[in-house]
Structure formats: structure tokens, C-alpha cells
């Protein structure tokens, strides 16, 4: 999630979020495949169509399309394979949403609100 979120950042998460926040928001959720706590950005919400595998997927109610900020090239440059996001595990149901990330309270020089990325 570089450069907006860096390893070691201390983040505040709003756990009262009951539905997917607006596209561009950063969320914490449980990955559908592994159950692991993960952080990604909302790219699209229910009712929207997202490009996938040469075609489109229409998101059902309460589903979101979550993506990493890193491109495949950036991830590979850092020594990893492609980012694991909705391109891998597909749409994510709202039951797996933990909350919206809204503030970074550490490290000191990076304190500030986590803003939505422009659509």
C-alpha cells in the first residue's frame, strides 16, 4: 500500500463501519481465501462493474472490489509476485469488512488522516 501506508504504520480503524465506504477509502478486512487480516483500497462497490480477466464483473449488493495500490510491476520490483487483492480472490462480501482506516498515529513524522484516493 506504499506510499500511503508503510510497513510499521500505526493506524486507527473505525470498526463501526457497517457498509463498504466510498471508493478510494482504505479498509481492513478478512481475506476471503485465508481469513488473514489485510489492508486494501476500495475500488468499487455494489452495483458497479469492474474490469476483470478481459471482461467485467457486476458487483452484487454489499460486495466491494478491493485493490492494492501497488501495480504488478511495483510488487515485482520489491521482490514479490502480484499483489493479492480482488484480482485474485474476487469481490469481497461486507461480512468480511473490519473497518475503515482513517488515521495514522505513528510514527510521529507521519501522523495524519488517511485520505481517500481520488477516484
Amino acid at each position, binding site marked *: 500500500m506504499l506510499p500511503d501506508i508503510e510497513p510499521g504504520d500505526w493506524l486507527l480503524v473505525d470498526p463501526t463501519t457497517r457498509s463498504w465506504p466510498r471508493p478510494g477509502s482504505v479498509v481492513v478486512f478478512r481475506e476471503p481465501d485465508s481469513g488473514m*487480516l489485510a489492508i486494501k483500497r476500495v475500488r468499487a462497490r455494489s452495483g458497479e462493474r469492474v474490469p476483470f480477466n478481459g471482461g467485467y464483473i457486476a458487483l452484487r449488493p454489499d460486495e466491494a472490489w478491493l485493490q492494492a495500490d501497488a501495480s504488478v510491476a511495483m510488487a515485482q520490483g520489491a521482490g514479490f509476485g502480484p499483489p493479492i487483492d480482488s484480482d485474485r480472490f474476487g469481490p469481497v462480501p461486507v461480512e468480511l469488512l473490519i473497518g475503515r482506516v482513517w488515521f495514522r498515529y505513528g510514527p510521529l513524522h507521519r501522523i495524519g488522516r488517511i485520505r481517500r484516493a481520488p477516484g
Partner: protein
Amino acid sequence: MTFRRIASAFAPKTTVHAHCDLPCGVYDPEQARIEAESCYRIVEKYAANEDPAYRTRAIGIKEHRADLVKHHIDVLWHDYFKPEHLETVPNLHDLFWQATKQASKVKASNDLADAKRLLELIDEVDAAWKATGGPAKTRVAGRPG
């Protein structure tokens, strides 16, 4: 000391991951060789058959296989080999550059000599993989005999 104690009281208790795909760590030039052998055989079959439909199909399949060769060679180059391996294989980068270039050549060529040269270069990659401990390090139980 006090600051550190206060800070640790406010430190997050939960970690979330923005993780990317972790390489599985299994690498073997045999994957590239099988696809390169496929290219070799297809070139042979292409030369032995005059049917234009068959030849078109053969070219399509060969191009796909040659792309797979490039992919497998690239994975070895990027993910398996590390800077310290240059001590054991000083010509490592040149070898991989030649091998991927040769795979591109085979993709566009119907000359058996090009396909044979690709096999030779993959054998050199295989030797480099063995010289750096590849079979023991990257296969679950070594390469099957």
C-alpha cells in the same frame, strides 16, 4: 526509557497485511526445457507437413510454447538466482539474456538449429542451477531421477 514505555502502551496490538504473492520457492529449469523441447518437435513436424492449416496451427502452438520458455527462464532469473550466485556463475546475466533472446528467436523461426540452440542454452541454465545447489534448495525431494 519512559518514552518508550509510554509509546509501547499505545502501540497497535493487531497487525494487518498488505501482502503480495510470496514466491513458493520451487524452481527447476526442467519446466523451460520441456516447453523448449516442445518447440523443437513442433519445428520438426512443421517441416514434415505441407498442409497449410496444420502449419498455421503448428506456428500458433510454437509461439505459445516459446512464450512459456521465456516465462520460466525469467522466473528463474528474477526469483531463484541471487547476487551471490554470480561468484559461482560469473556469466549468469549474459547466459539468461542469451537464453531469453533465443526463446524470442525460436518464437519467430522455423529453423531447427534455432530450437536446438535454445535447448543448449537451457542446459547451461540447468548447469548453473545445479552449481548453485538448486536441486537440494528448491525441489521438495530433489529432482526425480
